[in-house]
């Protein structure tokens, strides 16, 4: 199975190399972590989708079906690829924290965010890929992300509307939410670990779904 | 060992192989005890199906012309001369029959056939 994962890295060599260089430059050129993080997320997502592209459009997946490889191995290798990339992202953050000497705790939020976001994104993309193939998965992903952007804009707008209309009740909800969020210790190790756990559970469920989809499909 | 087979020949392939080997035995080109090529080797040499060769060898075996020893291969059997002679004669009779039949089918008269036959006899003997 590791051969499959290694193959995915090899086939995307150029892409990964350029991306990492870019990332390194971005991280150390700017003080601000945020834009670099978003860039890292985009690359991480891109590596997995590109490996799916290679299997689908480059006809690799048909080749794989002729070799003595279990269908489950093929599916799991994509998730392992995803996990490795998530791990690499965390490593980069740890490295960054060591170099900047800011103390690990302040990065817990970023780590949680990265792990959770990537897991969620892979967990949604991969089953779609395994059921419908690369083309449809790409279409789906475009629509999905547009939907999220619209949703987050819409949510903000909605919240404003609620706030401006029903000041009394809206206020109460808003305060409760803020209190709740402030109650959560931002720098707690436990929180980060819980977030990661939830993320992996989501991935695990996604794996099961992908396995079922791939097994039911015809090559 | 060269075996003549032809696609144009109306006889089944296995029969052609059978006849070819048989004639070699009768003519003495293959002597008792000589080894025949393995079935698969011959199939490869002639580029034809293994089953075809198997059938030919089976016929040869049934006619007691060859013996197959499991694990060792097929060999020309010890056939006695009188048997060879009688086989020879029946083969010649068959060939004559074929020629005469063809003559008849193509409208050659019996007189013409006799004429040609005598002419050939004169030349050969």
């Amino acid at each position, binding site marked *: 199975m590791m051969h499959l994962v290694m193959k995915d890295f090899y086939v995307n060599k150029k892409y990964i190399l350029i991306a990492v260089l870019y990332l390194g430059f971005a991280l150390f050129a700017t003080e601000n972590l945020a834009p670099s993080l978003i860039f890292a997320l985009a690359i991480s997502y891109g590596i997995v989708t590109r490996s799916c592209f290679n299997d689908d459009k480059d006809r690799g997946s048909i080749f794989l079906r002729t070799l*003595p490889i279990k269908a489950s191995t093929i599916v799991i290798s994509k998730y392992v690829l995803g996990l490795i990339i998530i791990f690499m992202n965390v490593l980069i953050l740890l490295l960054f924290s060591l170099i900047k000497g800011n103390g690990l705790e302040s990065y817990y939020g970023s780590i949680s965010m990265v792990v959770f976001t990537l897991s969620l994104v892979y967990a949604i993309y991969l089953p779609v890929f395994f059921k419908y193939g690369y083309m449809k998965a790409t279409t789906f992903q475009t629509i999905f992300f547009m939907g999220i952007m619209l949703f987050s804009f819409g949510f903000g707008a909605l919240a404003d509307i609620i706030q401006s209309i029903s000041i009394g009740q809206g206020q109460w909800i808003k305060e409760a939410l803020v209190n709740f969020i402030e109650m959560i210790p931002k720098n707690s190790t436990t929180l980060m670990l819980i977030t990661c756990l939830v993320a992996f559970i989501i991935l695990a469920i996604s794996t099961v779904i992908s396995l079922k989809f791939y097994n039911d499909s015809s090559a | 060992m060269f075996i003549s087979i032809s696609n144009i020949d109306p006889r089944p392939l296995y029969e052609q192989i059978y006849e070819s080997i048989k004639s070699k035995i009768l003519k003495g080109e293959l002597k008792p005890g000589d080894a025949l090529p393995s079935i698969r080797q011959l*199939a490869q040499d002639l580029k034809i199906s*293994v089953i*075809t060769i198997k059938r030919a060898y089976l016929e040869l075996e049934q006619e007691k012309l060859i013996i197959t020893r499991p694990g060792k291969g097929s060999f020309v059997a010890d056939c006695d001369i009188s048997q060879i002679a009688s086989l020879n004669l029946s083969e010649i009779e068959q060939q004559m029959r074929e020629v005469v039949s063809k003559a008849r089918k193509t409208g050659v008269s019996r007189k013409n056939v006799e004429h040609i036959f005598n002419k050939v006899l004169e030349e050969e003997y």
Partner: protein
Amino acid sequence: MKDNMLEIINLCKSYGNFELSDVNISLPRGYIMGFIGANGAGKTTTIKLIMNMIKKDSGEIRVFGKDHVKYELYIKNKVGYVSEQPVFYENQTVAWNVNFAKKFYDEWDDALFEDLLTRFNIDSSKKINQLSKGMKMKTALAIALSHHPELLILDEPTSGLDPIVRDELLGILMEFIQDESRSVFFSSHITSDIEKIGDYVTFIDNGRIILSEEKDKILDEWKIVKGDINLMNNYKKDLIGLEQTRTHFKALVKDFDAFKAKYDISSLVIDKPTLDDVLLHLTKKENLR
């Protein structure tokens, strides 16, 4: 108990317009079976089902006596498969593809592979998408042979290839079968190839098996019969896939010895059939039904 390399029992698969129904095929160890049918008759579908590249609806497939799904890995290790249009990671070189693929096989013979590459004149530093069709097929065949398979399954290996390459391939298959523990199953619509080296022939038409028999039996016992159109009705009952023109008729006859005993054949022209003839006339008969 026959030692069957490949056994397909009542295989069924439906796809939109096309249906494979009740396919039954048996291939004993040590022989070559040709799988003949028109384009779209179901050859590739059947083969893909054997390899579990698509899922069957019902029926059983056993390779080396084992169920083809349960023992998929074991079977794929011992089966050399060449698909109709061989696929690889197209943008990578031959060498890369092979280095990748060989890791998955239990037995891989590097020396044999190198030898085959030389024999086939393949440059392993070339990218797959730079190879011609014939080269791709030869590459796939080299890979298929190098993991010491017991069964070769080839889907239209010779289509689109020149006669020289086709002849090379037949030579390789005959070499392969010298070891009588191996078998070959190959589909083709170039029937002359199967006529040369096939031991068994299976005909498929419209998703159904119309004949599966020893090749010799077919070519020896069946005949093509031609005659004056005015005499046609005398024989009509036993004529298969009847073709008529203004002046003559042509048909296939099964079990010619029986036919000869039953009818006066003196004014008929009798010919040995080719496998093409058999396919043509048999499928005509099916259409009449």
